[in-house]
């Protein structure tokens, strides 16, 4: 991999799990951000969202979804970024999610791209490709990953890592 990925921070849930990962005071010195999430829910509530600068308004997205037997596409006004591992998935497996946020410190509306797959030894595993938009021109200084529609618990060993894409 090119020497352009700089790890800004990485956090892992301890015993008992956590409801969110919050990255604060993100430096503005990179061109783009990449967030990698490896997570599993303690329940069947699996929908997660991204929140920039503690602002939950003015998000929209288009996405395509497949689950092994059906495919669909949709368009909604929310900050949903996919589904983490379900408690019904094979034990100790975690869904993988990547969020790419170009020009996060610029003064235009913020777009982001997501790819996400669940991991399980079964007939149904959800995967998503998503194009998101946060209609806000503020520079992104904080990112939170949390349950979309209810408080979820991401189990022990769930990990979120934030990278900066170097300008040089």
């Amino acid at each position, binding site marked *: 991999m090119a020497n352009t990925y700089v790890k800004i921070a990485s956090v892992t849930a301890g015993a008992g799990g956590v*409801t969110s990962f919050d990255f*604060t005071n993100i430096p503005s010195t990179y061109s783009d951000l990449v967030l990698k999430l490896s997570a599993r829910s303690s329940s069947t509530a699996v929908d997660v969202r991204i929140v920039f600068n503690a602002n939950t308004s003015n998000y929209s997205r288009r996405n395509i979804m497949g689950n092994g037997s059906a495919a669909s596409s949709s368009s909604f006004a929310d900050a949903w970024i996919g589904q983490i591992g379900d408690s019904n998935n094979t034990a100790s497996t975690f869904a993988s999610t990547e969020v790419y946020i170009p020009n996060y410190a610029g003064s235009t509306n913020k777009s982001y791209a997501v790819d996400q797959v669940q991991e399980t030894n079964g007939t149904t595993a959800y995967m998503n490709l998503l194009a998101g938009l946060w209609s806000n021109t503020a520079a992104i200084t904080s990112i939170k990953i949390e349950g979309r529609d209810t408080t979820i618990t991401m189990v022990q060993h769930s990990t979120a890592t934030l990278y900066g894409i170097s300008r040089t």
Partner: protein
Amino acid sequence: MTTKIIVDCSTGVVEEVELTEEELAQREADRIAFEAAEAAREAEAAEKAARRAEILERLGLTEDEAKLILG
């Protein structure tokens, strides 16, 4: 205990803290709002499907035939 992990990217300091009463209340409000929006969306989709079925029946067409014509 409901906790969240906060990492300060400027210092690297990581904290695991309990959600405040305000945060818990906000999450509950979000959940209720989401469920209401989902219910409205599902009701609209069901109504649309019912109207479509009614029209197809009136025209004497199957779903596949309608798709063929519109495709």
